[in-house]
């Protein structure tokens, strides 16, 4: 194996940054291996965009260093970014120009690309029919596809994605996710994916780094995040009977929700309540949110 294959494609080393006296990053480090998709998960203000800004050389860290394929972004930004494509949550295009003109203008900053390659990428993101229209007339989904096209030109090895699926409809999100996964399969693309949506990261990423208030609170494989408990939302009564049944089964009540072991069967609860003269209007699974995850980590002291 060559040394370049072993070297991490993206490296963030002990990044620290303060904005107006507030610490936005408190010594965050992570690595992304070649061909890996890493999810950077956290709420607004957790430090995701600051990390990405430092990786793109748009934000100067107070200390620490970011590197792309071994090249320091701080020391040799242009060389490091030559292999990078980036997408932002709200991509800022020149709305008064066509999608085609936007792509030409942006790629010229990377030295320009052949028009045939440009047309190929436009076709790949399914924008051929509208590429000559003004970007101002595009929907949010089309803007994101155009953003994807510009990120893929002239031919990056690394993609940095800052909440790219925000505001997209479910169909758009799926299209985007499949596209990125195909890219990785075809080209071995390395991807850093910023998101505040746990489900999104779980479906797309190999590994995840969770940031909370500028600190890394978790780093591991996405599978490690899998919940070992099932959570249900219940609407049943009377309350005394429900509490009694739950206590008998040894299940936990958290407000409107009940928490039970993964192997447990919710039907046991429903039948027990009904057999004893109670009623059950709703039993539905509850998806674990990022808040739940934070809560579990703070209870367990992180993983």
């Amino acid at each position: 194996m060559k040394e370049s294959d072993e070297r991490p494609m993206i490296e963030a080393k002990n990044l620290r940054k303060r904005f107006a006296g507030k610490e936005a990053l408190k010594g965050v480090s992570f690595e992304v291996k070649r061909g890996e998709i890493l999810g950077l998960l956290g709420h607004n203000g957790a430090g995701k965009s600051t990390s990405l800004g430092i990786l793109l050389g748009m934000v100067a860290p107070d200390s620490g260093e970011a590197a792309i394929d071994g090249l320091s972004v701080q020391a040799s930004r242009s060389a490091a970014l030559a292999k990078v494509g980036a997408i932002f949550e709200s991509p800022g295009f020149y709305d008064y120009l066509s999608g085609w003109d936007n792509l030409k203008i942006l790629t010229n900053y990377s030295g320009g690309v052949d028009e045939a390659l440009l047309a190929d990428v436009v076709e790949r993101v399914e924008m051929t029919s509208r590429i000559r229209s003004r970007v101002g007339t595009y929907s949010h989904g089309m803007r994101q596809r155009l953003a994807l096209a510009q990120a893929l030109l002239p031919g990056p090895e690394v993609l940095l994605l800052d909440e790219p699926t925000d505001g997209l409809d479910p169909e758009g999100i799926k299209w985007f996710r499949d596209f990125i996964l195909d890219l990785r399969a075809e080209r071995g693309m390395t991807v850093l994916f910023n998101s505040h949506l746990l489900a999104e990261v779980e479906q797309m990423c190999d590994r995840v780094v969770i940031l909370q208030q500028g600190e890394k609170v978790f780093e591991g494989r996405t599978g490690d995040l899998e919940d070992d408990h099932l959570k249900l939302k219940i609407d049943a009564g009377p309350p005394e009977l429900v509490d009694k049944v739950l206590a008998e089964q040894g299940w936990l009540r958290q407000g409107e929700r009940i928490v039970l072991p993964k192997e447990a069967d919710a039907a046991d609860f429903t039948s027990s309540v009904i057999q004893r003269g109670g009623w059950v209007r709703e039993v539905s699974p509850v998806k674990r949110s990022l808040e739940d995850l934070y809560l579990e980590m703070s209870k367990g002291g992180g993983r």
Partner: protein
Amino acid sequence: MIFLKQFGSELRKLFGRRRTYVGYGVFLVFELILLITFQLQGVKERQMEFMEQNGLAADEYFSSLTVTFMVMAFSLFLLGSIYFALVSGDIVAKEVEDGNMRMVLARPVSRFRVLLLKFLAVCLYTITFVIFVGITGYAMAVVALGADGGMLAFSPKMKLFAVYPEWGPAMLRLAVAALLIGVSMCTISAVGFFFSCLKMKPATATIMALSVLFLDMVLQEFPIFKPYEANFVTYKMSTWLYAFEAPHFPWAKLADNFSFLIGLDLTLFAIGCVVFQLRDFKT
């Protein structure tokens, strides 16, 4: 080659805006209004009377060349300064505000180069705009007054009174003056560009640029500053009028004043670059 491609992109952005052409349209209308004003009986009579008092044949010197000189001087300093400050105040700050700059800075290009391209684009735009005003002003004046006649160039403030009986030398001086006005106007653009590089809204950058130049213009009229008026920026910007000095072309005076203006432009560009270099760009 890559630099030229990128410069082409910068011009495409600048000339892709509808507002750019609205500006050209506004100037054409303004020139037309000035031309009609100069043709109004009262105004025309005063001009002709002034010429005759100075021993000039008014019929010969109230010509398309003289009117072009007046149209350029009035329209560019009245409306041009506002317009150039508006365009240059937008050139960086608007892209930052709209998020375009993040897309550009995600590319392997240095911030210095991005700013250099923008600065050159705005300077080229300024100079070509002035030349456009000169050409259209002359074309309109020819339609109204015919191509014949000499030229009178005068400015009490700059102590200029120059007469050109022949079309050729007059047109040559007019062309050089247009180029020099373009370079002078680049100073307005440089001030706007400087503010545009700072962390402020595009409209604020424009207002700041105009305020600085307005202050400079007002201060030099204060009695206490009058002896030093030649050192003020807007005074130096008016030295394009020296291009009409006859019989010899005042190379030394022009070089002195314009090297100051170009030096100031470059200094503002350099400071703007340093400030921009130190800025963080984040969502």
